[in-house]
């Protein structure tokens, strides 16, 4: 199976090429078959490869497949090569499976869109890029995937380009992530220049040999990588593009802006964990960014009206959790949460998509409501996702992954109770906004007409994802709950585990109970506020401080306005002020000076004979003067 590894990105890429080049000539059905089928085939190959990887691991638990030498100049020899290890196996499984499910869903969801073919082309390209990103064996090739997913994100956010806002959001997303990418690019330069290679495993090996822990170079390299990760994963302070990115079609949001691309930053940090281990300071920053973003995103999600923006802020917040885990060195926990998050968040998006489809793009939750009866299937799957997001204890996948991260945040040598506290607070907020969303959308009185219900092609992926979001948690459970650990040891071959903290079952249990309590109470509060006493939120908003806070959170903590003020406006103003190219005035000035000289000299040509004679005489006198006197 391993020799088929190249097929995994190649299949979706082929799908893209076929649709892009023949798009106009293909029937819709054919487009769907190719678009979905290519990813499905990739998923099958991935499963096969993963199965073989688990059953018969390659020597050294990693395997490299070189396709061709990309370029060779001096020491710079990045290859177009794929590298399979436990981490990438996890990634490709999630990407292909979730990707396949979402594409399947889209086959129906996008059914009426006039640019049906383009959609599948872009989505296939995205999946291919994401797989390249996951499988790349060197940072240069990884960068290709990295930018590739960014491109597809751009294309798909702006998919409905006829709305200016959508196109603007697409542009914003690309540009903001590119700001982060500069960091990644410079990291590449730094790493290559000081280590002489970009091959990831080699980089880790050499870095460990040549760089001392906490050395400047290591810190710088890690910090630069972090820049890239922050941009891509929509973490503070580069998070502002994500909520706007919801302008894209909902499956896009599900796949790109929830399940896969935005977690590329997490993947990158996990991938280069060796460098981060050498830079403890940066790693702490990762954790702090994580906590900051998870609170920021959560609080913003709490007051949004647009259902997709809630989910966007929620994604931001959940990735914040992953960053927190990465920051404390809980690599596998982060990846675990990545997987469960991919399942439940894409499920939520798909559910939201079904709702939007039914209500003719009514995104405002306050104008929805009471859909529980109308759309029971959607409701139940949505609740499954929301429960997992809210990490309702024991029965949801989200609970296990979040619990693992929080526990690690407490116990890891790099962790601290403060980080735990942030995470726990976040858990409360998460539960609150998750169920606020559920209650506002599905409970209460009905305010909109349901015109369409999801058909089987949409239901199947939703169902499968619902199952996955509930049961994915059992890959890894705490000791007192069976102590299943499938994922950590598996990932252990690629990611270093945490040093074994001394077992504190009582403490662990206590903390779990505490967070569970927080989650459940969050749900209850949501019920009280949005079902039992819907007037209370309004009353809170009526208070001055409450209203201000609501506005502040609603706008995503005002980041957009700040950036507008300190970056965009000055740039545009400078650019427009200099539209005529100030340097050119130098040269036109020169030309003007010549013209002025011309006209003043022309005036000496009076046409008068005596003036001319005077010129001759003056010249002669001057000549005598120069020759005789000098």
């Amino acid at each position, binding site marked *: 199976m391993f020799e088929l590894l190249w097929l995994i990105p190649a299949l979706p890429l082929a799908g893209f090429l076929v649709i892009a080049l023949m798009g106009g000539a293909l029937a819709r059905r054919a487009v769907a078959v190719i678009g979905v089928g290519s990813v499905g085939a990739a998923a099958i190959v991935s499963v096969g490869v993963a199965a073989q990887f688990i059953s018969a691991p390659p020597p050294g638990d990693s395997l490299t497949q070189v396709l*061709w*030498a*990309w*370029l*060779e*100049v*001096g020491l*710079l020899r990045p290859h*177009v090569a794929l590298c399979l290890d436990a981490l990438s196996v996890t990634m490709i499984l999630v990407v292909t499976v979730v990707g396949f499910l979402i594409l399947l869903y889209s086959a129906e969801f996008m059914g009426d869109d006039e640019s049906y073919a*383009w959609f599948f082309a872009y989505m296939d390209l995205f999946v291919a890029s994401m797989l390249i990103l996951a499988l790349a064996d060197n940072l*240069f090739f990884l*960068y*290709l995937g*990295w*930018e*590739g997913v960014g*491109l597809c994100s*751009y294309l798909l956010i*702006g998919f409905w*380009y*006829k*709305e*200016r806002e*959508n*196109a*603007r959001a*697409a*542009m914003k997303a*690309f*540009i903001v992530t*590119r*700001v982060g990418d*500069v960091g990644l*690019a*410079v990291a*590449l*330069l*730094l790493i*290559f*220049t000081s280590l002489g290679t970009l091959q990831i495993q080699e980089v880790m090996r050499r870095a460990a040999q040549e760089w001392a822990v906490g050395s400047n170079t290591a810190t710088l390299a890690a910090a630069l990588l972090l820049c890239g990760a922050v941009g891509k994963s929509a973490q503070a302070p580069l998070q502002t593009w994500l909520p706007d990115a919801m302008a894209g079609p909902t499956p896009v949001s599900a796949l790109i802006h929830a399940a896969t691309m935005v977690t590329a930053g997490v993947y990158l940090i996990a991938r280069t964990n060796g460098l981060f281990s050498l830079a403890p300071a940066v790693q702490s920053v990762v954790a702090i960014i994580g906590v900051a973003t998870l609170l920021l995103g959560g609080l913003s999600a709490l007051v949004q009206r647009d259902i997709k923006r809630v989910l966007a802020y929620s994604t931001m917040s959940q990735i914040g959790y992953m960053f927190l885990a990465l920051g404390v060195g809980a690599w596998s926990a982060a990846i675990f949460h990545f997987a469960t998050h991919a399942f439940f968040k894409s499920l939520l998006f798909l559910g939201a998509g079904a709702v939007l489809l039914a209500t003719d793009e009514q995104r405002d939750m306050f104008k929805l409501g009471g859909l529980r009866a109308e759309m029971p299937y959607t409701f139940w799957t949505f609740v499954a996702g929301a429960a997992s997001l809210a990490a309702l204890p024991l029965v949801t996948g989200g609970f296990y992954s979040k619990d693992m991260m929080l526990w690690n945040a407490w116990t890891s040598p790099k962790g601290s109770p403060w980080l735990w506290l942030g995470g726990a607070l976040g858990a409360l907020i998460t539960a609150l906004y998750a169920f606020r969303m559920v209650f506002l959308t599905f409970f209460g009185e009905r305010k909109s007409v349901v015109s369409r219900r999801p058909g089987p092609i949409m239901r199947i992926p939703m169902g499968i994802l619902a199952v996955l979001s509930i049961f994915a948690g059992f890959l890894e459970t705490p000791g007192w709950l069976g102590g299943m650990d499938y994922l950590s040891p598996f990932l252990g071959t690629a990611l270093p585990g945490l040093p074994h903290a001394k077992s504190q079952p009582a403490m662990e249990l206590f903390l779990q109970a505490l967070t569970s309590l927080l989650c459940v109470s969050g749900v209850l509060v949501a019920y009280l506020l949005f079902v039992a006493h819907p007037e209370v939120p309004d009353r809170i908003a009526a208070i001055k401080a409450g209203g201000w806070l609501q506005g502040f959170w609603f706008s995503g903590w005002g980041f957009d306005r700040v950036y507008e003020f300190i970056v965009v406006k000055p*740039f545009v103003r*400078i*650019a*427009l002020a*200099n*539209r005529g*190219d100030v*340097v*050119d005035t*130098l*040269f036109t000035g020169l030309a003007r000076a010549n013209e002025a000289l011309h006209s003043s000299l022309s005036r000496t040509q009076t046409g008068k004979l005596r003036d001319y004679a005077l010129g001759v005489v003056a010249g002669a006198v001057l000549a005598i003067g120069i020759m005789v006197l*000098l």
Partner: protein
Amino acid sequence: MILVWLIALPLLVGILAWIAERRGVGLSRWVALAGLFVEFAIVLRLWADHPIRMLTPGRATWLVELKLAWIPQLGISFHLALDGLSLLLVALAVFLAIAGVLCSWTEIQERVGFFHFILLATVTGIIGIFLAVDLILFFVFWEAMLVPMYIMIATWGHEHRRYAALKFFLFTQAGGLLMLAAILGLYFVHGRATGTYTFDYGQLMAASIPAGTAMWLMLGFFAAFAVKLPAAPFHTWLPDAHTEAPTAGSVILAGLLLKTGGYGLIRFLFPLFPGAASAFAPIAMTLAVIGIFYGAILAFAQTDLKRLVAYSSISHMGFVLLGVFVWNELALQGAVVQMLCHGISTGALFIIVGQLQERIRTRQLPRMRGFWETAPRMGAMALIFALASLGLPGLGNFVGEFLVLFGTYTASPGMAIAAAIGIVLATVYSLWMIYRVFFGPRKDAVKFDDLDPRESILLVVMGAVILWVGLFPQRALDTAGPTLRALERHVAGSTARMAGKPDTTETSLSRWMGIVLPSGRDRDR
């Protein structure tokens, strides 16, 4: 003789196309196209030979060489030579000439035969520049190519064509004459030191020049190349010329003329004045980075689509300048790849702008909106080249820019980081362009046809080349590699030799002024 044919063929074809006009304009176009394909076949044939001959040990880096006496009294010879570097650029020249003919197919309706003659004459001059290894011959091609270019802009250009053509000519001429003076200076310095007065590149490369003199001479060369490249602040001719030129003119300007500047830097400036160029490198690199930013910011501010693309060229050529002055293998290779890819991607963007203008009779951004709906094929092609211009991996420009960055980082991390930040600005203007033209609701009144097969094939081929260079750049890198490595070795060797030599420059001001100022009544001879 193959080299003479390489130069003469386009000219002959041009004349033929001119004559053919009498039998119908269509014939003129076909003649030009067919001739260029023959030329392209010759180039490809040479390229196919390239690795075999290149790898033969003991050979000079010249693949083909031709030396005839021209003006022996002055040490000027008709000396042409081809190596990997020139091969690549000649191939680019012919390729873009074909693109130029194709994109003018419907745009040029007046004096078609003459147009093709002028176009091919320009290309002749440019190919000559890439092949000449006698400095005077080089200069002759350098200047001679301006005349047809000028005529092209002034005749088939847009509203302000005369102004633009004039500006272009004056800027280039100013730089060119300074270079001529520097060439002569080099000639005399070398001649006086060795007794052989020659303009031959190979021999002059061995000249050892006092550092102070070398700096002045180097600046003379730099003036010419910096104007052509163009490096800020000598760039202001470019937006006007590019904007006002007919599409084919813009393609040739952006795709080839600018490359002659980069080529000159690599081929002549550094190898002839290694010490001075290295000493000057910090300033040049600063100019390069300023250019990257300045061009990008101005590109963003433009309302004329063509001007936008023109300013983006300034930004991109900043990478070339940076790469050359870093002068290590990575950066040089990057500069070469960047030249190739910029030629094609910007050329393609100009072609698209030309197609738009042909259809809607304007280049003004405010009068465009939502054209994706009307012309998705055009939009997709524009997007691809815009992405190339913002340095998307997988497309050729990325390879060029990143090789330059890798090379630069070893020499000067600060510059590399600054240049990398410049890429963000490239993203800004590229996406802005796409956004303004193709996205948003469609303007109701505007309706036009999407690309026809001729236009589509042309752009798809150009896109394919960009993609090919992006994914398989090794072929191009291997072609230029031996030359670049040889030049690098030469420079390294010279610098080592020069190190420690005392500076024996004449610095007397009056000597420099060329006038011995009389002092009092002392007139002793």
